[in-house]
């Protein structure tokens, strides 16, 4: 009877080993003071993008090529591009996971990239709103990462001044470290 439970006991042993390892690793992980945040934290709580689209009805019934849908996309884009940012985030040392879109690649590695919250080529969906794109500048060039790799980026968040006529603003980050994404240990 006991023998039949073998897989379970092995599992338990592994779990215990993992827990011990996890405890050992704790002091190491606590060292840098980067607060882990989520992408929702970057959206102001009172921002309701749908408020502007209260008049839209029966969208499901229209084909994508319908002029009304295209007009709607235009409006959506404007709202998305001028999405507000959380000003309290300025200057905070944070850590968050996301997908990488390379901007400036050099021989030494990747210097600048965009961090976005969802995977995809942005063909089927409009690009993420401005407050869901972080322009990351790495302190040291990163090697070995490619488009749409999932990474943890840690660094200081900055708010970009809205300089263009469109008023597009957003987040940027001076990244201390960019590492390949791993499931956080619980």
């Amino acid at each position, binding site marked *: 009877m006991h023998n039949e439970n073998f897989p379970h006991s092995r599992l338990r042993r592994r779990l215990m080993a993992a827990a011990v390892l996890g405890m050992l690793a704790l002091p190491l992980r606590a060292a840098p003071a980067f607060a882990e945040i989520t992408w929702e934290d970057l959206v102001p709580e009172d921002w309701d993008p749908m408020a502007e689209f209260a008049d839209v009805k029966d969208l499901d019934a229209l084909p994508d090529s319908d002029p009304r849908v295209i007009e709607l996309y235009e409006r959506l884009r404007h709202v998305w591009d001028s999405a507000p940012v959380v000003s309290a985030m300025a200057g905070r040392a944070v850590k968050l996971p996301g997908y990488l879109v*390379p*901007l*400036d690649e050099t021989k030494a590695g990747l210097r*600048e990239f965009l961090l976005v919250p969802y995977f995809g080529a942005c063909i089927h969906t409009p690009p993420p709103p401005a407050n869901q794109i972080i322009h990351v500048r790495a302190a040291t060039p990163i090697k070995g990462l*490619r488009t749409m790799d999932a990474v943890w980026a840690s660094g200081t968040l900055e708010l970009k001044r809205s300089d*263009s006529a469109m008023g*597009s603003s*957003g987040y940027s980050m001076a990244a201390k470290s960019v590492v390949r994404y791993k499931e956080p240990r619980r």
Partner: protein
Amino acid sequence: MRALLHIAWRSAWNRRLTLVLTLCSIALSAFMLLGVERIRTDLRDNFTSAVSGTDLIVGARTGSVQLLLYSVFRIGAATNNIRWDSVEFLQSQPGVAWVVPLSLGDSHRGYPVLGSSDAYFEHFHYGDRQALRLREGRVYTDLFDSVIGAEVADRLGYRLGQEITLAHGSGELNLSDHADKPFTVAGILQRTGTPVDRTIHVSLEAIEALHLDWIGGAPLPGMRISAEQVRQRTLQPKAVTAALVGLENRAAVFSVQRQVNQHAAEALMAILPGVALDELWDVIGTGERALLLMSGLVALVSMASLMSVVLATLGERRRELAVLRAVGASPYHVVLLLVLEGFMVTLAGILAGVAALLAAVWVLNPWLQSAFGLTLAATQASALQGWMLLGLLAAGLLASVVPGWRAYRLSLADGLSPRI
């Protein structure tokens, strides 16, 4: 140990023919392994440094890799041009800081001709945000001025003031010359190690002027427009091949990209250079892996041949090894002797392979540079190359341990007693 080395060397010299053949196969495998890895890394370095600071490349709708290849690397041809009003549309987009129109399709003695605006010299960057700099002369100011890349100047021996004739299409054979409208070399750019070195730059108006009296891809008979007459015409470009776009806020790139892709007046496509490069690596990666696999197999075969050669010579060396044992060498000495031989052959093979690679790169580099704009940095070893060499050496040692073990098992009497 020194005595043993001496014996190993003398014994190997006695069987030099077979060992040299083995050495050659090891040299070939080292050459292939290192060469493939070298080309792989240098190709990537060359490609990544070709464009920098450009947020979007816009062209006619095609594959993103193809657009990148013809607009930046001048590889392949454009499927379609984009109209000038599309360039104006790009310029009018909110958030767009600069637009550099590119017009391709003509050539001079096999080197591509690029028509562009003044913005090109201001905004085009390569490597790590480096701007183009002139080695001699100035940027084009006159309609028939040209600025040539360093490779064009050096290879063709062009100086400032040289008159050159551009040809339609991009080939070595200049049958359809624009000979009636010669260009003058006004400036020579500094070497960049990118496709810019192989390019002849003229103004967009010049490209337009060249094709004024051309209709349907051929010069119209009886309708020659001289260089002087051309200057009187309005030379507003009607179409360009592609455009480089820089943004004020790089984070707005997706939004502008989508706007371009959905432009109703003309089918346009905007790509992020970095993303398109990664797609290119996906395509090339399969071939690279196949090449690496092939070189690995060659290495395996050469190691197997090393093992078989040392094993085969064991038969004829029975007497030799037995005599060594008889004069006081321990079985371990015999093992060491054989391992030493394998090690020497492997090491010599690797050194020969490295030397061959250096020589090949030295010989081929000028041609690679002028034909493909690819520069191989043979002297910069990558970490992976180091590991490959260590792996080869370890495999050579391992391959000679097997015959060594067999020699260890052969008894003293076996070699000394005469065979019946």
